[in-house]
């Protein structure tokens, strides 16, 4: 009896519409973020994360309205990431009804931004998103570095040191994505997840690579993650969040059923 491990569906939103093909069988308009969020809420999602992939500044206003609309109807925690660069960006998202914001490249550019944000709004709403890629050769001890620009741009920053630094600066949670696994459906990088999760004392969300339900359980049991984030496995109606939780529960993982 105690704290449940969380399942967090992630939705990519471009100019107010869910993209990357969410295809629930019985939803008329699967591109509507409100409909999709409601469906995941009904399935028992513990939180929902929106990733704003809108390119232009002007269209970012749309994301604020999406958050407002979802927060009026879905009463579970909402996180918004993508394009969060200023204290004003954070304030707008929180006022719209987001509970947490994900900060990624803005933190790499200016680590003090995370400190400023945590001091202003509290650590509980500051999630630092880390995109890590394995840089060690096979016969070397494992080592990962932070990459930006969707995994294309190396920074030379060690992932473990970076995670510790971000927590010291006030991050309340780490969203950890393996750039080697993202989109591969071959499971989380469990060694990376475990290494980071054991190195910091804030919750870690594992992300990148989920292809089947067992991957989620592995992320918790072997990766020591506190929460697991997945996109495509839920989008196409292959599996529901409820099924995922039942599978996790059958392996002794505490979940909210």
């Amino acid at each position, binding site marked *: 009896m*105690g704290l449940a491990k*969380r399942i967090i569906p992630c939705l990519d939103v471009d100019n107010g519409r869910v993209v990357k093909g969410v295809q629930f069988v019985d939803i008329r308009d699967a591109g509507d973020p409100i409909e999709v969020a409601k469906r995941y809420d009904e399935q028992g999602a513990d939180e929902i994360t929106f990733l704003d992939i809108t390119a232009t500044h002007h269209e970012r206003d749309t994301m604020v309205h999406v958050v407002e609309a979802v*927060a009026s109807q879905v*009463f*579970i925690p909402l996180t918004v990431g993508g394009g969060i660069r200023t204290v004003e960006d954070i304030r707008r998202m929180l*006022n719209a009804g*987001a*509970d947490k914001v994900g900060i990624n490249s803005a933190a790499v550019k200016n680590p003090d931004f995370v400190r400023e944000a945590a001091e202003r709004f509290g650590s509980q709403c500051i999630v630092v998103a880390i995109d890590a890629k394995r840089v060690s050769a096979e016969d070397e001890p494992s080592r990962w570095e932070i990459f930006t620009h969707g995994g294309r741009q190396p920074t030379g920053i060690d992932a473990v040191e970076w995670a510790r630094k971000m927590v010291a600066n006030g991050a*309340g949670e780490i969203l950890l994505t393996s750039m080697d696994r993202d989109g591969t459906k071959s499971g989380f990088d469990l060694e990376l997840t475990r290494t980071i999760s054991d190195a910091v004392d804030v*919750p870690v969300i594992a992300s990148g690579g989920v292809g089947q339900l067992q991957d989620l359980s592995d992320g918790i049991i072997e990766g020591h993650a506190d929460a697991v984030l997945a996109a495509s496995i839920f989008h196409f109606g292959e599996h529901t969040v409820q099924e995922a939780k039942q599978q996790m529960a059958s392996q002794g993982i505490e979940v909210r059923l």
Partner: protein
Amino acid sequence: MRRVAVIDYGMGNLRSVSKALETVSGQSAQVIVSSDPDEILSASHVLFPGVGAIRDCIDELKRRGLKDIVSETARSKPFMGICLGMQAMLSHSEENNGIDALGIIPGQVKAFNKPLSARGDKLKVPHMGWNQVHQTCDHPLWKNIEQDSRFYFVHGYFVSPADPAVVAATTHYGDDFASAIYRDNVFATQFHPEKSQRAGLQLLENFVNWDGQS
């Protein structure tokens, strides 16, 4: 008609709280988000939310002239504190190197000192996610909420009231802590009912329908 005032003192997101209250109230109550003392004093129910750090919370209440309003409404109307709002109701908090709080309920707010799990490894702080709430009393606000229901928590500090009789629920994280407290017309939760789906909405509905008697 009932009027529920959500106290706006600049701490965090009030939209979710007000939307959740509107959802459960329907036509039976009006929900206002306000920092106006008269408006708050004239409401039938007062909700005192909060996220962030306690020093800012107390400073903002003072700066906006709302400190006494909170204390006064907590004596006179159905009153509910949430998360930091709950913590601010106690006498003193360890956060920010020690801050005197409102003293509505005598007691301390303490940090999770990197507690150990049963397995002996350290627990993550903040305590974040869905945990079970074990009701330790009969209370109108627990109506239609199953024993040990899960609610959403996110906090690094917890309340330790001086009088254990005010504890309305406990939750286990490393150790048991008070996840809800009550006294007379006051009820407060460490968790966020506005983010706790069905059980949370039920609790808020119970609050809107509450006459302040426990």
